[in-house]
């Protein structure tokens, strides 16, 4: 039997999304080698919520067995997801969590992810200092979860003072400009927390500002970021940074989960967590810090990864099976 898996990707054009689709294709090949035929039906374009609803309806009409969605809204797709599951289609939502009760979300725990990063930053500052936070887009679920994670962490570090929180819209240019403005009027910044997709803008703003002492930056796990990071280390040897992967491989992990669901396996009790109790939190696969920077970067460059490549990883079949009875 050939399994047909629909993919609804509501935004294209970032390396992250391309990596996500590549990961899914890799796992498809893996299934094929193991004798399970999987056919992908990809709907991938820059669309709004209505457009994505249409994409998913097309997949329902194409009578796929399962659908993997990277959603454009946390709540806007609930109705169409219900249509899909009513039609007997298994729906897995990756990267971000949706509230639809009949879907299974496969994502990293964004809140824990942000707490991990802020914890690292606080420790690197010895538990005290002035910090600037550059967030993504207000009102966006991942952003809200991450803000909560930051707050979780800061509860344990009362001497860390957040001087300013600004939004960089997950856009390097915006982040660079926003931070430039802050740097110009705030001379005493010890640390900077940034979400991913903005780290390079943050570093360039720092480079341009030429501070006497570089703040500690909790950054991102992109090749381009690591390049800049090692660059800065040349002139500021005690510059410290940290990158935590937000893996595009959640797509591939999602494929394994949806395949298991299609094959009739049942999730173990207690696997589903999260605000809507419908999320499988997959482990964060990779991180990089000052001690591992040189080697990590060398490895990635040896694989000819572009600046826009981010550190990645996805569930193995065994790991995926472990969620199921």
């Amino acid at each position: 039997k050939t399994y047909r898996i629909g993919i609804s990707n509501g935004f294209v054009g970032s390396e992250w999304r391309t990596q996500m689709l590549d990961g899914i294709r890799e796992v498809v090949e893996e299934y094929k080698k193991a004798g399970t035929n999987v056919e992908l039906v990809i709907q991938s374009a820059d669309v709004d919520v209505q457009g994505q609803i249409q994409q998913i309806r097309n997949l329902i009409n194409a009578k796929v067995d399962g659908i993997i969605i990277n959603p454009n809204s946390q709540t806007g797709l609930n109705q169409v997801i219900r249509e899909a599951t009513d039609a007997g289609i298994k729906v897995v939502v990756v990267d971000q969590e949706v509230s639809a009760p009949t879907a299974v979300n496969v994502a990293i725990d964004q809140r824990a992810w942000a707490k991990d990063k802020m914890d690292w930053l606080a420790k690197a500052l010895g538990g005290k200092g002035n910090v600037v936070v550059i967030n993504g887009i207000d009102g966006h679920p991942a952003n809200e979860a991450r803000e909560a994670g930051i707050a979780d962490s800061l509860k344990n570090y009362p001497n860390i003072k957040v001087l300013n929180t600004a939004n960089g819209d997950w856009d390097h240019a915006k982040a660079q400009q926003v931070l430039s403005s802050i740097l110009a009027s705030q001379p005493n910044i010890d640390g900077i927390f940034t979400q991913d997709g903005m780290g390079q803008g943050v570093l360039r703003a720092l480079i341009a500002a030429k501070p006497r002492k570089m703040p500690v930056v909790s950054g991102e796990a992109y090749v381009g970021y690591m390049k800049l990071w090692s660059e800065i280390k040349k002139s500021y040897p005690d510059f410290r940074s940290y990158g935590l992967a937000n893996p595009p491989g959640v797509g591939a992990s999602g494929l394994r989960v949806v395949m298991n669901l299609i094959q009739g396996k049942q999730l173990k009790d207690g696997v589903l967590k999260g605000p809507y109790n419908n999320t499988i939190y997959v482990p964060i696969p990779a991180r990089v810090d000052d001690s591992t920077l040189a080697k990590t970067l060398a490895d990635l460059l040896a694989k000819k990864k572009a600046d826009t490549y981010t550190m990645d990883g996805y569930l193995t079949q065994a790991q995926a099976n472990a969620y199921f009875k």
Partner: protein
Amino acid sequence: MTLLRRLLAQPYALALILLILGLVVTALFQPAFFTPRTFANNLRTYLPLILLAVGQTVVVLGGGIDLSLGAILTLSSVVMVQAFGLEPDPGPLRTFGGVALGLLVGTLAGAVNGFCVAYLRLQPIIATFATSFIWGGLALWVLPQPGGNVPTVLQDFVRVYFLVPFSLWAVLTILLAWAWFLGTRWARALYAVGGNPQAAFTSGISVERTRLGAYAAAGLLTGLGAFFLTADIATGDPLIGGPLTLASVVAVVIGGTRLSGGAGGIVGSILGAVAYYLLKNVVALSVFNFNLSPQWQTLIDGTVIVLALAAPGLLRLVRRQP
């Protein structure tokens, strides 16, 4: 034959053709599209844009444009969600009060836009761009992150059928209201103000009040759109409306309404909104039917939309040279 000819002479002829084209191609690629359930579901998805496009049409007819309708939709939607509260059945007061409050907020936001344009005489494009920040900011303040709940009565309400799906009734109601409106003095004032504000002024029409009314009506229609959207997705999202703004302008233009005001109507915009979605869908379907790389979809999409927008002009070029 004469009926056909008269139809083709209408400003919305093009939207109609595109719509039929979209339906035919969809029927070829995806017969399942026309099962009553899918069809009804799709119409419900289209309804918010249809309402926004109708609202945009009213503003455009009066010589303006409103780039904040998407933000108003969001604001109105999150206000409703917050008013409903979290219980699945909050009782009639909160349910209907919430809807009324959302509609009121939409209307007020539209009226503020109208005030800026009509009384402060700010240039519409840029003034409504500015107010879109205000409505968007307020929406974030009302509902900082997606969530909330919509009473089940309302969710069920937008899914009912009385022989035909609810959304069709909604559209029919709007068309009837429009037909009545066209016979009124306000309609003449609206078209006159859009066509030649100076002439309207010297004819004793209150240009300011007409413009204000147009914007407020657009706000109300957008509030209705917010209601349908909210009831459909059954929860709130403070970023949901944004992309609908420019789509509403595209729908209006495809529908044959003149962007500089004074000529056109909502029939075209309704057809235009549906045609807009159908065309996008046809492109999406072709991409996977012909195994094109998904990267092409955005390009083809964009090209199709440009051609649809160009079509009235091309048609005019052809018509003018006999």
